[in-house]
């Protein structure tokens, strides 16, 4: 069966429509969150205080979407009593929107730091690593949302496998910032801000992993949270 259309075909057309509506709401929320991450990163790299301000403000839209989608889920649970893959879809989405909302918060953190760093004339000396980290997690987030849209477990596993590299990059960046701080104590304040950005980006990567775990759950039925990527692959193959 074509999994991308699998919410169709209920005897109750309206039920199908509700589930499809839920799915597209999550995709819209994902799209918005992805855009906020992109803007936050751009504001950081370009020193664009205005864009940073807008990004912080837009986070409230994400919060609103979270409430809205949660309400849709509760409504379906109460009135339809979904089972099997429909149940997994609704439960998975409840957990996914919580992660998306947190990603929105992290993006807002990055934007708020970007605003404070916008005036720093030495920005270019330390921004290439955070930008690289940001590009990495943005790609993970995009991949996670694609995996959800296509219900693609293999793709989700690939994204999860990228997280250790992000963690390594974050650690390297922290060491680098410490070196900067020791060499130029007058820049400690801004270096700490850069470190906050990096921490927020790294967290976005973790949330993208969580999204992928939910994709695996709603397709396979395997709850793979807190498992290593090798174990996840094994379970997917039926081990």
């Amino acid at each position, binding site marked *: 069966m074509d999994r991308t259309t699998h919410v169709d*075909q209920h*005897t*109750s057309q309206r039920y199908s429509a509700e589930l499809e509506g839920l799915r597209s709401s999550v995709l819209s929320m994902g799209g918005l969150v992805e855009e906020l991450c992109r803007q936050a990163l751009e504001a950081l790299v370009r020193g664009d205080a205005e864009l940073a301000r807008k990004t912080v403000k837009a986070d409230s839209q994400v919060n609103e979407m979270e409430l809205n989608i949660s309400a849709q889920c509760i409504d379906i649970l109460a009135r339809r009593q979904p089972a099997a*893959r429909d149940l*997994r879809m609704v439960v998975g989405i409840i957990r996914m929107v919580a992660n998306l909302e947190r990603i929105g918060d992290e993006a807002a953190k990055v934007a708020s730091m970007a605003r404070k760093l916008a005036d720093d004339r030495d920005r270019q000396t330390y921004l290439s690593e955070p930008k690289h980290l940001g590009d990495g997690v943005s790609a993970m987030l995009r991949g996670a949302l694609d995996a959800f849209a296509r219900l693609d477990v293999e793709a989700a596993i690939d994204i999860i496998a990228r997280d250790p590299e992000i963690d390594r990059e974050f650690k390297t960046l922290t060491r680098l910032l410490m070196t900067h701080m020791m060499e130029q104590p007058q820049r400690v304040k801004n270096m700490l801000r850069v470190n906050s950005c990096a921490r927020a980006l790294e967290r976005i990567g973790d949330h993208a992993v969580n999204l992928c775990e939910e994709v695996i759950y709603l397709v*396979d039925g395997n709850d793979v949270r807190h498992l290593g990527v090798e174990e996840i692959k094994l379970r997917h193959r039926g081990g």
Partner: protein
Amino acid sequence: MERVEQQEPVAGSKGDAIRPPLDIQAHSEQKDYETIGTPFVTDPKMTARNVNVYYGDKQAITTISLDIGRNEVIAMIGPSGCGKSTFLRTLNRMNDIIPICRVEGEFCLDGDDIYADDQDTVLLRARVGMVFQKPNPFPKSIYENVAYGPKIHGLAHSKAELDEIVEDSLRRASLFNEVKDQLDKPGTGLSGGQQQRLCIARAIAVSPEVILMDEPCSALDPIATARIEELIDELKENYTIAIVTHSMQQAARVSQRTAYFHMGKLIEVGDTKQIFTMPKHELTENYITGRFG
């Protein structure tokens, strides 16, 4: 309860959410098929092997093998005409009274062949009791409804003993407190839910080992339904229960194991939790998620 894994699912891995190819027409014509999941248990109360049932020329059940575990509640679900009620009725030979009905296969209750030539069906139906869709109390008093079975089976040797059986059965059916002052009133005067509990009391009165229930709540309101479900939960301590139901939520609530029937075949059997969160067969999934009616 420990399950005996019959065979790995046909297609792909356990993680592969979508199972054998879906071709309902082809599936209905195929005689040789494999039930997915765990139709067999280590400590069965009843066993059915290679069951085929025909109504005249029409085959209603095709090669079903299934165990009913001791002290478990097993739910049988499936669309109308899938054979679940027919199968249930083979378990205490209720189909014997239908002239055109022919039953093949082996059925055992605690290892005894229940279709043996010398099997007394009245005795069998005392061991394997039945509760029907529509409450059907005898047109007699509440007391007589419950006392009738123990009397004809000679289970009570005195009036006092019979009184005790009646009270005990009514208590087990959670009905005694509601009717204790009107035991001489007709059973038909009770509400639908009370009548159904009276029928359950009547079934319990002859100390059955297995209780078959054929959509016992379909004529009842939600509160009466909840009371019957509560009762099923209590009864499983002492009895083995097989229940046919059209309500999937009911199957999910009361049973430990669920069997999914489709066009006379037993498609999948598994722990109820697994069937309702992660069914292995596409037909099961389609049915419980409300696809294709």
